[in-house]
């Protein structure tokens, strides 16, 4: 067989975004040997791109915010599909995790009293997003990176893990290859944390980078874990639309948080239309543009503008406006923040200003931006225990965007950056505990051999299909059939096309050799993407209702019965099996918090 190298760690962390780095800090604090693997260089993970802020109820803005309101907002925003225990832990601990970042050296924007400044965001009752201008993710990842690095982990940059190795005792390690030279490495570990992020790359227009192919979730599935809420894919209301080169790139929600106004092609401020105000939010938003304007300077006595409804609602409204023929020239809507004045915009939204100026030749202090929904985030993911981040596989934990459950059917903006801190830490602590009870186990040579064969096959094939061709077809069908608006017809057509692509993907070929060869790398990524695309489509087909991000044109109503179950996906043989799992009943103390909100 192909020779391979072996390395050993107490704990292996796959992924160096916020979740992976925060997990690493916990492992290193416990004095264990910690290996961190990432596909990119350190500090380049998706987390770096986050803009608007990290949500935690610090209550620095003279508003009666606390974790309970954050809890309630998250569940209402998630259309009641969230795992309540995860949300409880999250809303509580987010506060300490943000303050801890300051101890590590993060420098947030300040209030006049010198505390961390917080901005409003969609679905959050109060100003709750702790931020640094519009580059909060950079602050977060650099802070965690510096902290982790100062504690001496082993960082394997530009390695891609392609399979988890298991025995009857659970996970025992992983197979990886070094992107720069194609060397194969077997990593042995007593415990493994998956922190591999999301999977927006299956869609044509996305704010996600090439890394977002869902490797971690697919590998967990293949190792015996199950996934949850896979139908729930977030379409962010405001992606860039023009020029085509920039299509899909994110326009942060902070623009609306800072007062940005949405107008359709006819100039109408459409978010005020009653049809776009969902029942559960009625009475909570400004009912006239005048009130929305007053809110900018007086948040106590006025309600938020409807542009700050949760993302699922705003994205759908934009989609409907455009479909009804009220779009802009390029088929989007306008987002206008010019009324805030040039100086304010450049201070509060510097990277948006720069992004539009440099890439779109649009001066956002003087003219509106053209926007359209873009695929942004995956609420679904690896099914984990709320308290420990434990997956169904012993020794295997998952945290961050690759895990599911916290956000339910729709994630509120800002909740991911604190999700990755809260559950990154918890996964790290659980891995420490697991590592103390488990030992390095022998590796199954046959599992390694199977992976190596799969990995290297495309290089040996001269006749075969290019991964880029299939990946592009995949994006097309997912964009057309599994996007904002879904139907039985579209989803079944998508499923049969997926079947065809899966077959063709068995004959991939890649030119060149194993040295830094993106064409070859893409071949393995594609198999993960196909697996997860199928999980998304099968779950979306199964859920015969509209809720949160899932909008079925053939089942437009929200069905209370469907509100009682999550869908999980497991792999049986080579088949994906979707199961309905009842949501655990909400305990009284949490029910009381929910009821308070109805008053």
């Amino acid at each position, binding site marked *: 067989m192909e020779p391979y190298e072996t390395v050993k760690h107490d704990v292996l962390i796959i992924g160096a975004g916020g979740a992976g780095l925060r997990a690493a800090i916990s492992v290193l604090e416990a004095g264990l040997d910690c290996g961190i693997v990432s596909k990119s260089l350190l500090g380049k993970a998706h987390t770096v791109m986050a803009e608007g802020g990290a949500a935690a109820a610090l209550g620095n803005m003279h508003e009666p915010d606390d974790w309970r309101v954050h809890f309630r907002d998250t569940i209402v925003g998630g259309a009641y599909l969230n795992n309540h225990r995860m949300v409880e832990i999250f809303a509580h601990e987010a506060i300490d995790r943000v303050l801890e970042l300051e101890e590590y050296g993060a*420098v947030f924007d300040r209030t006049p009293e010198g505390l961390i400044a917080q901005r409003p965001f969609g679905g959050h009752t109060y100003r709750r997003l702790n931020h640094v201008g519009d580059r909060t993710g950079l602050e977060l990842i650099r802070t965690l990176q510096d902290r982790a690095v100062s504690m001496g982990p082993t960082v394997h940059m530009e390695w891609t893990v392609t399979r988890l190795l298991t025995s009857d005792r659970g996970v025992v390690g992983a197979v990886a290859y070094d992107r720069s030279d194609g060397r194969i490495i077997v990593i042995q570990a007593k415990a493994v944390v998956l922190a591999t992020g999301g999977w927006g790359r299956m869609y044509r227009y996305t704010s996600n980078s090439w890394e977002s192919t869902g490797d971690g979730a697919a590998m967990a599935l293949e190792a015996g874990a199950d996934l949850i809420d896979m139908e729930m894919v977030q379409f962010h209301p405001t992606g860039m639309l023009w020029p085509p080169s920039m299509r899909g790139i994110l326009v942060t929600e902070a623009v609306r948080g800072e007062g940005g106004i949405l107008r359709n092609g006819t100039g109408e401020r459409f978010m005020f239309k009653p049809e776009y105000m969902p029942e559960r939010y009625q009475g909570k938003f400004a009912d006239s543009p005048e009130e929305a304007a007053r809110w900018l300077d007086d948040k106590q006595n006025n309600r938020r503008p409807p542009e700050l409804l949760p993302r699922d609602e705003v994205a759908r409204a934009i989609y409907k406006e455009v479909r009804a023929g009220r779009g802009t020239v390029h088929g989007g809507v306008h987002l206008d923040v010019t009324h805030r004045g040039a100086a304010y915009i450049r201070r509060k939204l510097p990277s948006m200003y720069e992004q539009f100026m440099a890439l779109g030749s649009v001066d956002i202090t003087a003219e509106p931006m053209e926007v359209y929904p873009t695929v942004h985030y995956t609420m679904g993911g690896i099914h984990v225990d709320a308290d420990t981040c434990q997956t169904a596989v012993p020794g295997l934990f998952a945290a961050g965007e690759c895990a599911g459950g916290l956000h339910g059917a729709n994630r509120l903006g800002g909740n991911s950056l604190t999700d990755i801190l809260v559950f990154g830490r918890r996964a790290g602590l659980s891995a420490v505990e697991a590592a103390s009870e488990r030992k390095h186990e022998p590796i199954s040579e046959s599992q390694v051999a199977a992976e190596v064969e799969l990995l290297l096959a495309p290089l040996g094939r001269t006749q075969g299909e290019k991964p880029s061709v299939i990946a592009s077809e995949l994006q097309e069908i997912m964009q057309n059939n599994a996007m904002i608006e879904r139907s039985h017809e579209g989803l079944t057509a998508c499923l049969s096309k997926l079947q065809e692509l899966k077959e063709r993907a068995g004959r991939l070929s890649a030119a060149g050799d194993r040295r830094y060869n993106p064409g070859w790398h893409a071949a393995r990524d594609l198999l993960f993407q196909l697996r997860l695309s199928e999980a998304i489509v099968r779950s979306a087909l199964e859920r015969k209702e509209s809720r949160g991000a899932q909008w079925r044109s053939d089942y437009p109503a929200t069905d209370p019965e469907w509100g009682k179950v999550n869908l999980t996906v497991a792999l049986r043989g080579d088949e994906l099996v979707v199961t309905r799992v009842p949501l655990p009943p909400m305990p009284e103390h949490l029910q009381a918090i929910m009821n308070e909100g109805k008053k």
Partner: protein
Amino acid sequence: MRDTIRLRVFRGDASGGEEREYEVKTFPGMVVLDAIHQIQGEQDGTLACRWNCKAAKCGSCSAEINGLPRLMCKSRVEEFYDAAGVIRVHPIKTFPLIKDLVTDVSWNYKVAESIPPLRIREGTPRPLRMDQSDVERAQEFRKCIECFLCQTVCHVLRDHNRTDAYFGPRYMVKIAALDMHPLDSVERRSFLRRSAGVGYCNITKCCQEVCPEHIHITDNAIIPLKERVADEFYDPIRMLVRRLSGRK
């Protein structure tokens, strides 16, 4: 804009290489990274480059475009092609080449590991309070996306190859960010002079000119750091007074 352009991309590795020409179709707003992606997707999947965000936020896609150190995702093609529609794309020069547009930047990460991290002054009350006006300096430096374009143009590293003696502008910015954090208590002056080699910088400002984040590397980071080091080494009395009064 022209309908097609010709990209001359360096192909090769540490043992050598050459420019290869690819014809690509243009579209509105196209950046050089789009052109590279088009080549990878349609003509040659083995072409190696790094990228992540495609929005000038991650600092992965550094290259030398027509000899200028730039982010490929922030470089519109129409600003770069010549009369014949040609754009030349090469890897950044200061670091060892791995393949095509990908270089080995690991030295930078080793430098980062050696910098003494932040330590908040003992007895500081919680929650931490800082004035916006006091954090702004540090925030400017914390905008750095680690694209290493400044490292690649700094002649101390590029022409004189003194990675053994000087950390380079990126890490002057990093040290300045720590030093200008209002609550930091670590003394880094002798470290700056001895290990980091701040004295090697002769203020040519080339680094500042290429920074895509518009950080005033020389003016706001390096010159103040040089002044501090000068204080420490030439004015022991002032230093003592400052130490006793708890100011840096």
